[in-house]
């Protein structure tokens, strides 16, 4: 479980996150949604410690993460996996070396054990016979899946995904969403996904928070989101014409 209490973050004096409080539960896919520039990525990067926050508390179980020193944070980070928007695979390493990297860094396993784990993770995300390819030789969807394989290589307790569907076609996007949900349930991880894709929201949104201009405006789940009274959320959810038509047809007797 990850608990955020009154988180504030600013850049050059400009407040970009204001008094965010939320609890992300383990074994669930938690979504942070909002328009581009609303502060989703800043919130996610603050939670994982890539951004220093001005005030507030970030709790990982019973540990106050934002007050820990480098060594303390390192212990918690060894339990984190993260999928970045652009996958962030290491260009100079092959697929196998990318997934093996955290194992090389933080385990004393033999090479055979590490390769066995790499193959298990790659199979889990349906990447077959691509061990020796470089990231530049992979499609966008494959890169995301390899990045997920790398993120789960060390059996993390916490999985963070920053816009996992950006740049993917709708079918691949659904596959990635399904994979994230399956892995979350399989390993009882606390998963936090940043997205502005409504398909993802309706597919995997077990807990959702909506952020607008750095402020948390709404909290609920995928069943509640269509009937919300929050105006800014409704503008976001029913932004496209298909969603608007569906809403109108639902409201008709």
């Amino acid at each position, binding site marked *: 479980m990850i608990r955020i209490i009154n988180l504030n973050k600013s850049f050059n004096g400009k407040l970009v996150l204001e008094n965010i409080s939320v609890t992300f539960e383990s074994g669930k896919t938690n979504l942070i949604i909002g328009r581009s520039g609303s502060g989703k990525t800043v919130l996610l990067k603050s939670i994982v410690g*890539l951004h220093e926050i001005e005030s507030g508390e970030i709790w990982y179980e019973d540990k106050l993460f934002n007050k820990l020193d480098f060594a303390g944070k390192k212990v918690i*980070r060894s339990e*984190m996996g*993260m999928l970045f*928007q652009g996958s*962030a695979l290491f*260009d100079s390493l092959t697929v196998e070396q990318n997934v093996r990297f*955290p194992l090389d*860094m933080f385990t004393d396993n033999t090479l055979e054990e590490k390769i066995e784990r790499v193959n298990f993770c790659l199979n889990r995300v349906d990447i077959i016979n691509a061990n020796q390819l470089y990231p530049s030789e992979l499609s966008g969807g494959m890169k995301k899946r390899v990045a997920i394989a790398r993120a789960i290589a060390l059996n993390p307790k916490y999985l963070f995904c920053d816009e996992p569907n950006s740049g993917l076609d709708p079918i691949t996007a659904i596959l990635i969403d399904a994979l994230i949900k399956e892995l979350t349930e399989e390993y009882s991880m606390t998963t936090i996904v940043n997205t502005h894709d409504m398909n993802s929201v309706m597919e995997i949104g077990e807990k959702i928070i909506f952020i607008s201009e750095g402020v948390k405006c709404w909290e609920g789940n995928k069943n509640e989101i269509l009937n919300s009274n929050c105006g800014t959320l409704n503008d976001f959810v029913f932004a496209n014409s298909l969603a608007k038509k569906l809403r109108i047809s639902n409201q008709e007797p």
Partner: protein
Amino acid sequence: MIKFLTQFGRYFLLLKKVFSKPEKPVIYYKQTMREFVYLGLSSIGIIAIISFFMGAVITLQTAYNTENPIYPKYLIGLGCRDSIILEFSSTVAALILAGKIGSNIASEIGTMRVTEQIDALEIMGVNSASYLILPKIIATLFFNPVLTIIGIIVGIFGGWIAGTLSGVISSENFIYGIQYAFIPYYITYSLIKTVFFAFIITSVSAFQGYYVDGGSLEVGRASTKAVVYSSVLILLFNVILTQILLS
């Protein structure tokens, strides 16, 4: 002034991170070997070519400027040797390496920054500054002196080839000249300068790349800044070190 001091402070804070204890020495060893190849071995060609032609030009210019019969011919070889050892093999080679490996380091690390690869390392709990920069510093500190020695040998050879083929000096006179009044300390002086310059090139370029903020345009700018700042610092430290080491 405040901006300069801020950057200065960030540079030393980065160095503190770079020189902290490695997570897993065996991984750093492998990275260092990789950097020996990318930053060291791959620079031998350009250093050899430039040194050869530098040596040739120095010999010819010295010959055409010392045509007075009271000057012994072997002075051409001596001039070539000392010019190459004292300045060209260390300072000029460092300026060329600032262009070649400095821009390479800044763009490589800068690209890793803008594509979130550095963030990925940090999330894993890896000290990204140390993992990315320390192997490069170690590789250049050890390999650039080798490049300097190669530059000296090839430069003097270039001088000998140009001098004898053009007929401005005989082979015997040239070889006598390069052996005449040889001061071994000059080699030490040159190697000490090379070590300082290697550190400047690698650390300044890595600093520029590590703190890139933005996209590909900023990576390009960081690369240019890396070359410019490294070159200026090399010239500045050349004066300081020369005063300290030769006075």
